[in-house]
Structures are given as C-alpha cells and as structure tokens.
C-alpha cells in the first residue's frame, strides 16, 4: 500500500523536456489531492497524455518499464474482499483527477476485480462518498 502513486506515464523518448517537468509536478491521482489548481489547461494535456499511452503497447517497451510506471502497480495489492463502497481511500486510487474510473488497461487488475471496483465506486458515488465529476468536488471545496 504505497502512498506514492505516480500518475504520469513515461515520457522518456517523446515530448520536450519542459513538458516532462510540468507533468511530473502534478499531484497523485487520488481524490484528496484534487485541488483548485486543476483548471481548463489540464484537460488539454490530459488528452495528449492519453494519446501517448496508446503508443506504448509494445511488449519489450513494457518490460523496460517494469517497476517504474503506474500501469503495473496501481491495483496489484488489492484484495477482493477489501473492495467495498466504504473503503474510499482504496477506491479513489481507481479514479483519475477528474473523477473518472480508470480503465482496465490502466489499472491492470483482473476482470473480476475490476468489475467489483466499478460496482463499489458507483455505490459510493450514489452516497456522495465519491464524486461523479471533479468539478462537483470543487464546488464543495469552495464553499468551505
């Protein structure tokens, strides 16, 4: 259960150095770190980031990344019985900064575990334990 979840994909060979530093300065994915600073500008590069992930599917590249990237790690220590709508800390690791559920391609968990995660996240959302979208959270935070 490491607190350090690195939300940035590897950008080694692609992208200018300036972009790398900008992205790696961003906070981890989980919900407590949704700050008011994620504004419209994030969205544009988040999309770029997804495009880059499309590109890194080759197996040998994948082996190289072992131990350093997010995709292999995020759900590796999750036990099936711990997945519960009450366990918000765990479930929020499976949301991105905008509150969307991470795809199985990113979480790398088994189909069974992913189904349960999705089910429990949806329950938690209904009870307002987790947000449906990140800007809902921003509204609440602004009020306080």
């Amino acid at each position: 259960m490491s607190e350090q979840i690195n939300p940035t994909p590897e950008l080694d060979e692609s992208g200018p150095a300036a972009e790398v530093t900008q992205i790696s300065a961003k906070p981890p994915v989980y919900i407590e770190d949704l700050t008011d600073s994620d504004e419209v500008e994030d969205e544009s590069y988040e999309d770029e980031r997804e495009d880059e992930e499309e590109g890194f599917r080759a197996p040998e590249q994948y082996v190289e990344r072992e131990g350093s990237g997010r995709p292999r790690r995020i759900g590796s220590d999750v036990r099936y019985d711990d997945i519960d709508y009450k366990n918000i800390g765990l479930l929020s690791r499976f949301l991105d900064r905008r509150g969307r559920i991470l795809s199985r391609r990113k979480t790398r968990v088994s189909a069974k575990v992913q189904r349960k995660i999705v089910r429990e996240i949806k329950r938690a959302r209904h009870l307002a334990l987790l947000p449906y979208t990140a800007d809902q959270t921003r509204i609440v935070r602004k009020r306080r």
Partner: protein
Amino acid sequence: MDGAMGRQYELVYVLQPQLDENGINSFDGRVRDVITAQGGSDIATEIWGKRTLAYPINRFFEGVYILHRFQMPPAGADEVDRTLRFSEDVMRYLLMRKDD
C-alpha cells in the same frame, strides 16, 4: 441461502445536516422500529457522523451518515425501502443484501 429465516442486510443512509442530535436519534429509532417490525434482528449501528459530501445534494454540502447491519426476512425489504424513500430527511440511502 438462508431463505425465509432472514438474510444479512446492510443499510446506509445520509440525513440532512441541519438535524440536531435528537432529530438524528429519533430518525434512527424509527428506522430500527421498522426493521424490527419486519422481523429484523441483530441490528448493529455505526454512526459515521457528519461528513462532507463529494458533491452538493439539495444545496447541502454535508450529510449525516448512518449504517445499520441486520438480519431480516427478505419480505421486509420493501417496507424498509419505502420508509426511507418517503422520508424527506433522507438525502440518499443504500439498502443491500450482504451475502457471504
């Protein structure tokens, strides 16, 4: 399946934040009464207290969370559901069967 003898249920509901301690306790008591009236037993209660909601509901930013675990014959679930649905103080609720 334990059939008619009763199944394990888990119920969470979120009450409006402006309720005072008495209001919360009396509502909590009412829910337990309904459960008992439907043949429920072994009611365990966890009061999580006031929490910030992840998004506003009815212009409220906080809610009081209460959880019950109990045993009840399946026929009683409709009545419990109805009670919660028609209570204005309940902003959200989740009634689930816990099968192990």
